[in-house]
């Protein structure tokens, strides 16, 4: 039992580090991370960095080389991730395209389409979004209603999507629709990719509880999509969606925000009733709990990496990451603000201030516990797919979709 690289892994790690060192600045501390002045600036910087990665042969590591990837092994992806985290480099905007749209295109698009659409995803020239959730279809995502009707070889799309990250700056989107409401829920779905500049698409930002707007509503009014942009067979949209949902669960990992280290360091400097907070037993007990959770996730990840290193498929332990880290973040954020006593309610926008970090976590955790599968859905997945327990009985099983009550009824 050790934490060491194999000789091949060490060689890859050095190669990755050397390239990064030549092309990006090292972080000056754990909190020294890249931050864009605005969304527009961020996009520009991310695209420029992605171009650099691509030219250096470090884009979309696990993709085939012909589409701009590197054909790396899973353990090499992990090592790359570890090395890149030491550098202050731009990030974001591209994950959905590269992590979800790319794999589904690779499985279902024609060769000609792959050659047209995949390389610009790898170079960062084009950005994609995912059009799945709807106002009446969140956890029950197969309950979507956006209508797709075929006439000749053109589909007409009408309806509304919601929670679409980056729709306002995306070039393309992957879209799941209902093509037949008279058959059972999972059977009448059809999957497409769509040009986000198509006439009839309207994007409206959603204001979140944090005040920011990372997500959108996307309205479709008589949007035309050629049948050649259908992915998978008519009625097979659920099967195609599962490919991307599985990738999403792998992509949504650790919650970012204040963790044990921040809470520990706060407690060691914070006055609580005339003494340092760290001297308070209730505080120590909470800190110990968070440390055990953080440590458990860290070493679960190491167990996964070890499996990858041996060329095995990792165990299901990663399925607990988002549940544990999302809840931990919510508790730590609440603790951080509580430590400030009454002043913890005051807003501050001072960059890097402890208070704003905990406030960000306070809002952010509420979203993390929902995004990419709620805690409840993830617990269903653990009990069904990991422990092998049966599905809940479904009131809508076998019913034609148009006879099923949905949404806020």
């Amino acid at each position: 039992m050790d934490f060491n690289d194999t000789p091949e892994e060490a060689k890859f790690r050095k190669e990755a580090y050397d390239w990064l060192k030549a092309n990006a600045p090292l972080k000056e501390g754990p909190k020294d991370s890249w931050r864009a002045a605005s969304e527009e600036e961020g996009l520009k910087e991310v695209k420029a960095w992605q171009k650099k990665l691509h030219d250096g042969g470090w884009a979309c590591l696990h993709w085939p080389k012909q589409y701009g990837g590197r054909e790396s092994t899973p353990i090499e992806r992990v090592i790359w991730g570890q090395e890149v985290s030491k550098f202050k480099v731009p990030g974001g905007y591209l994950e959905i395209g590269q992590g979800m749209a790319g794999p589904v295109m690779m499985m279902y698009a024609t060769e000609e389409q792959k050659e047209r659409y995949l390389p610009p995803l790898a170079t960062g020239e084009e950005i994609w979004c995912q059009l799945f959730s709807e106002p009446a279809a969140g956890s029950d995502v197969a309950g979507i209603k956006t209508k797709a009707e075929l006439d000749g070889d053109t589909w007409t799309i009408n309806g509304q999507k919601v929670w679409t990250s980056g729709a306002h700056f995306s070039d393309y989107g992957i879209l799941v629709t209902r093509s037949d409401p008279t058959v059972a829920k999972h059977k009448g779905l059809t999957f497409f990719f769509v040009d986000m500049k198509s006439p009839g698409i309207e994007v409206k930002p959603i204001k979140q509880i944090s005040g920011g707007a990372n997500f959108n509503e996307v309205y479709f009014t008589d949007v035309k999509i050629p049948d050649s942009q259908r992915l998978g067979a008519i009625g097979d949209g659920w099967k195609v969606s599962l490919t991307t949902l599985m990738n999403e669960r792998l992509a949504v990992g650790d919650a970012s925000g204040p963790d044990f280290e921040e809470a520990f360091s706060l407690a060691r400097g914070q006055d609580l009733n005339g003494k340092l907070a760290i001297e308070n037993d209730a505080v120590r007990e909470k800190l110990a709990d968070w440390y055990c959770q953080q440590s458990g996730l860290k070493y679960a990840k190491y167990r996964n990496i070890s499996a990858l290193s041996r060329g095995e498929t990792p165990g299901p332990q990663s399925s607990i990451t988002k549940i544990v880290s999302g809840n931990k973040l919510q508790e730590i954020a609440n603790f951080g603000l509580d430590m400030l006593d009454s002043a913890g309610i005051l807003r501050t926008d001072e960059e890097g201030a402890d208070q704003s970090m905990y406030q960000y976590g306070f809002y952010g955790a509420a979203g993390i516990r929902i995004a990419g599968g709620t805690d409840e859905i993830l617990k269903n997945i653990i009990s069904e797919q990991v422990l092998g327990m049966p599905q809940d009985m479904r009131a809508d099983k076998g019913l034609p979709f148009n006879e099923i009550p949905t949404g806020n009824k």
Partner: protein
Amino acid sequence: MNFEFSADQMQLKDIARKFLEKEDAVKRARNVLEGEESFDENLWQQIIEMGFTATAIPEEYGGLGLGYLELCVIAEELGRSLAPTPFSSSVYLATEAILNSGDDSLKQNYLPSLANGEKIGSFAHSESNTSPTESNIQCNVSGNALSGKKIAVVDGDISNFFVVSAKNGSNVGLYLVDASSDGVGIERQPTLDPSRSHASVIFENAACHELQSEWSSVTNLLDRAAVLFAFEQLGGAEACMDMAKEYAMGRYAFGRSIASFQAIKHKLADMYIAVELARSNCYYGAWALSTDAPELPTAAATARVSASQAFHECSKENIQTHGGMGFTWEFDCHLYYRRCRQLAANIGSQAIWKDKLISSLERANQI
């Protein structure tokens, strides 16, 4: 990265598991609980024959010279099967205290007979209903004689010798007292988990031998043992999770398997989360124990706290999942519920280990 037990270690684990299943260790735990015996002597002899007691003892002292990773996988299976033997007292505590002592003639005297099971040792530490500390320990040594009273000494009534924490002048250290010495009075104490025996031990000027004179020897012994106890707790927790799942799958109510209700599924998912966190932290503890890493105090406390939480969560929710049957004497749920409490009490409370964890991080941060 190779943060995993080796194929050989996993094979040893499998052998231990199959052996304990074949011997129906859980049934034997029930027999000890219901009977007059302090432990299952037949199972203990078989465990000795399997070489488990000799695992981490060097070959020069009659052991197998394997390492602590091997001991960890055995501990997990002993915990899973509730094996009613003095293994933890004799191997994780008494053997370790002698190994740590640095006294070669003592090692020659005791280790071979601990390896081959001729001797059973135990750790006499607790004195009252509070955590033993450097300042509150009353047992004292004067010359070569030890006096004072210890309580809740696990396997105290079947031990050939005791490792005793005691004060000598201003230092609290570890001392060895043979159970047959004059001035040693042993009395069994009834407990919440009668599948493991406990005793009070009174020492009246009993002849003793110094193992280590410093308090740090006590904390080091507890840290090392904590990793091994954590593996027992992990095994017990996972056994409870598996029991709860099996029962739920086969129990029908309202026309369907109760395992299809989200209330039950989410309960099981919570158990799974607790077990996976504990397992990962136990591995960290195993790594620190087997490499004598400076992180041991942190890793041991993390494993201990995490595994105690997992066993508590799983043993109580296992009863809950079983409904009324879980509250009966007939079902095995209570055996695990009791053992969970016994293991949680054995080397100190959860509050104390949480405090140790934060203290170790404070120290690490100061360096």
